[in-house]
């Protein structure tokens, strides 16, 4: 009975409802875009975008703007620069990504310092870097939903050409796919997903939401559609489960709730470990080992 009462209370809480909507949207978008990102081997680039976006989030705090606009602005700019530079070689790409990432975090450090001294907003750093699910203003919801919808649409549009590119860029070109345009579209979707994740679980932890569910799903799913569906389920489950646990944690240590981001990331990590265990237990089912393996 008390569980039911607490659940009703949970859903009637305004910050909780905003967190469920925005967090759920972020998790869904991250799962879909994350699967494509992992398949393109761009996980590190995804993390770098999030770190760079933290400078935008910090600036938004300093100027009192909509935080999503801040995250979004810098994530999109960084994605644009990384696509523009057109570096094919993985090593060089990693170097550039690492340098850009560092510069972004450095700028964030400066802006967060100003935010804490000028506005004495000492919570800004934690909010930007580790998320602030329960302090997301309700006014953000329409923009967040628009961003989520755009990211999902773009991701669905380039889904097939992106799969061919993941097989081989030359194969894609031979099939008449405009590889640059497809890659740019994916980078846009990635920037949108990252900015949503940065606002909800924080710039530093956003990688967990972007890459974690996708990586877990790819361990067991055999088909792209199954991977996306499973990643979405894991992302949504972890996010909503995390919000619920964080809400409950107010009763565990009275007056002091645990951070939502911790629970979300912990649940995603648990899903990743579980997927790994399942993949080991059912190797054939999970990845379809060549039948020739047993025959010879």
């Amino acid at each position, binding site marked *: 009975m008390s569980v039911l009462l607490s659940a009703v209370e949970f859903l009637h809480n305004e910050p909780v409802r905003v967190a469920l909507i925005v967090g759920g949207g972020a998790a869904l978008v991250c799962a879909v875009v994350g699967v494509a990102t992992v398949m393109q081997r761009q996980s590190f680039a995804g993390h770098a975008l999030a770190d760079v976006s933290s400078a935008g989030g910090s600036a938004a705090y300093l100027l009192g703007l909509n935080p999503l606009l801040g995250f979004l602005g810098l994530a999109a700019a960084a994605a644009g620069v990384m696509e523009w530079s057109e570096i094919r070689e993985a090593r060089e790409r990693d170097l550039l990504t690492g340098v850009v990432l560092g510069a972004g975090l450095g700028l964030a450090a400066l802006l967060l310092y100003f935010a804490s001294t000028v506005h004495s907003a000492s919570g800004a750093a934690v909010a930007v870097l580790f998320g602030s699910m329960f302090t997301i203003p309700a006014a953000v919801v329409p923009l967040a939903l628009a961003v989520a919808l755009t990211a999902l649409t773009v991701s669905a549009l380039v889904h*097939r050409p992106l799969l061919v590119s*993941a*097989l081989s860029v*030359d*194969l*894609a070109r031979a099939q008449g796919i405009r590889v640059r345009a497809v890659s740019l579209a994916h980078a846009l979707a990635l920037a949108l997903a990252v900015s949503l994740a940065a606002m909800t679980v924080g710039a530093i932890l956003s990688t967990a939401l972007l890459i974690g569910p996708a990586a877990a799903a790819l361990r067991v799913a055999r088909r792209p*559609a199954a991977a996306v569906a499973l990643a979405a389920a894991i992302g949504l489950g972890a996010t909503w489960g995390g919000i619920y646990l964080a809400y409950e944690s107010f009763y565990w240590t009275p007056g002091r709730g645990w951070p939502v981001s911790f629970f979300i990331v912990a649940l995603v990590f648990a899903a990743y470990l579980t997927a790994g265990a399942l993949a080991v237990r059912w190797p054939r089912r999970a990845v*379809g080992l060549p039948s*020739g393996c047993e025959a010879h």
Partner: protein
Amino acid sequence: MSRSPALSVEGACVALGARLVLRDVTFALEPGEFCALIGSNGSGKTTLLRAILGFVPLAAGEIRLEGAAGAPDPIGYVPQKLALDPALPLRARDVVALGLDGARLGISWPSKARNAEVDRMLRAVGAEGFAEQRIGLLSGGQQQRVLVAHALVRRPRLLLLDEPLANLDVRSTAEIVALLRRLSREYGAAVLLSAHDMNPLLSAMDRIVYLANGAAVAGRPEEVVRTEVLSSLYGYHVDVVRVHGRVVVVAAEAGEQIHEAVARDPVHTASVP
């Protein structure tokens, strides 16, 4: 023969920087013909295939595909050495399906006609036994079959394969060659296949394009694989020697120093057709 060629290459030259990688390459392929593109590493094989695909521009000459007025005819293509990630969640049948409609935007909805077409293609290349398995976990020969199915599923008039026999064992090599030759007849597609070793191909090929230092001779194997012809192509004397039922192309003692790198190694081994 009144049919127009599936591919005609006339006086094609390709320059990479200041270096002329292909010089005045001329040949034509009829639909259904099986042609080997032979040459040692660095002779320009991959560049020629990429020029046909339109990836690199021609400095001079012309490459025409059948029905090329307006929309470019689809070319089936199997790239060189694909390192397919075992983590890619793509089954063999997904790869073939992507050959059919991978360039389209939007997500694909289940379609019986599409599945039937994919199944037909999987059977045609003998891949039905591993259709449900991840592409990255298949053996080299199995992957080649799936990639051939991917390339052929839209029924192109021309199929290009870049070193498809590299890293295959003897049995897989023979199987893939027989498969490609059969498919070229069944589908009426001209097949142009590059290899550094013509040995497994000589009995199957209708035509050979032999590249050395960016220049080419083309024709029927018995016209091309001859001491005078290849010596003239290389610009120094090479011998086409028959040993134990194989043809070995051997460079004579290095004469002209410009060809030193090539002349030091035996150029090719090849079996008699």
